[in-house]
């Protein structure tokens, strides 16, 4: 049993293409494993794409509280619902604590509705619409507030002992060299 790796690279030099192939052969007594994941079915393709259009397409949602304005819909997702942002807590005298509070995304039928209330001096100083219903073709309200369930981390070098590398288009050595040469001239 062999596996063959071809490295196929086209290099454009003045409109002509040089094509070279490298072959690597590995002898191996490896049993071929049958795939358990079939990926090339049309149904898999069409079901996987979930378009972010929102109008007229309220997602079915398990978090349907009866409190007005707290049903989460709009952006089509089956991810766990975002942690609800805190609702303003009344303080003594029936006033609200100062700060900014964002309501949950509500399904306004034509699209998502999300409001942000700014409390100042215990009173509502401002109400901003972060998302509002609009026409089916153009509605997409990307929540500009930080999504609490996105995780961040500092990137750090890891082992390069991987089968494959994904990155934006790999540059050829020639490109790097010519870039270095150009930069040298620019000095």
């Amino acid at each position, binding site marked *: 049993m062999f596996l063959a790796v071809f490295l196929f690279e086209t290099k454009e030099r003045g409109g002509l293409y040089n094509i070279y192939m490298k072959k690597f052969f590995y002898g191996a007594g490896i049993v071929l494993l049958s795939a358990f994941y079939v990926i090339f079915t049309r149904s898999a393709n069409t079901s996987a794409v979930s378009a972010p259009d929102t109008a007229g397409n309220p997602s079915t949602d398990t978090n349907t509280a009866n409190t007005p304005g707290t049903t989460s819909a709009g952006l089509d997702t089956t991810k766990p619902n975002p942690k609800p942002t805190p609702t303003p807590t009344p303080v003594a005298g029936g006033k609200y604590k100062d700060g900014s509070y964002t309501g949950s995304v509500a399904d306004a039928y034509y699209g998502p509705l999300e409001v942000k209330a700014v409390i100042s001096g215990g009173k509502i100083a401002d109400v901003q619409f972060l998302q509002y219903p609009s026409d089916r073709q153009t509605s997409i309200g990307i*929540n500009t507030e930080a999504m609490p369930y996105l995780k961040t981390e500092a990137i750090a070098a890891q082992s390069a002992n991987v089968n494959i590398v994904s990155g934006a288009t790999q540059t050829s050595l020639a490109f790097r060299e010519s870039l270095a040469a150009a930069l040298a001239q620019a000095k």
Partner: protein
Amino acid sequence: MGMPVTLEVLGEEVRATKAIEGAFDYFEEVDQKFSTYKEESEISRINRGELASEDESPEMKEIFRLSEETKKQTNGYFDIRRPDGKYDPSGIVKGWAIRNAAWIIKNLGFEDFYVDAGGDIQVSGKNAKGEKWSVGIRDPRNQIQIVKTVYLSGGGIATSGTYIRGQHIYDPKDPSREFHKVLSLTVVGPDIYEADRFATAAFAMDEEGIKFIEGLEGFEGYQIGENGVATMTSGFERYTNA
């Protein structure tokens, strides 16, 4: 397309070689048709106004149809029409071609392989050790460095970024906007065609791109910012264990 194409197919040597050669022939055909760097390609002729739309090849018509669909699904953030009015479908052709090449190999009876064109990859099955294919994500600031590894036994992974060719990505809604905050965005999805088109669109949204991926069922993303901080979608870590 001017990019390296790498395939690895596990199986009997003669058949595997034939499968790989078939895939390369297919990539060559795609290049002849869609390369904006080739003067006589079909896309270059279209951009010069030399080809009527009814005379376009079936593949070209399909790419335009898929591009239009993607544009709608991404609210215009994916758009193959450049600010100068010319068409550059490379943001969708690459993933589409890789998927087709993978179908060619699959239809020849192979279960364990990958197809990599310019850092966008479709994988199938397992590697030579019987494990999931390990895919390293390049450090956008230092190409020889890997900063994250994902493990896949199927599906596609695509990375959009500006750090190699410079500002070749643009925001269709504001073409003069320069991109600074996001260096690269990697998308993992059920197949490379889907991952590629959404990675392209999401990258055009700059920092908001990762939120767009978060909202897509079945897709995960890893976005690397210029400050060396990565933001990942909530389900991304399902892929980080071998």
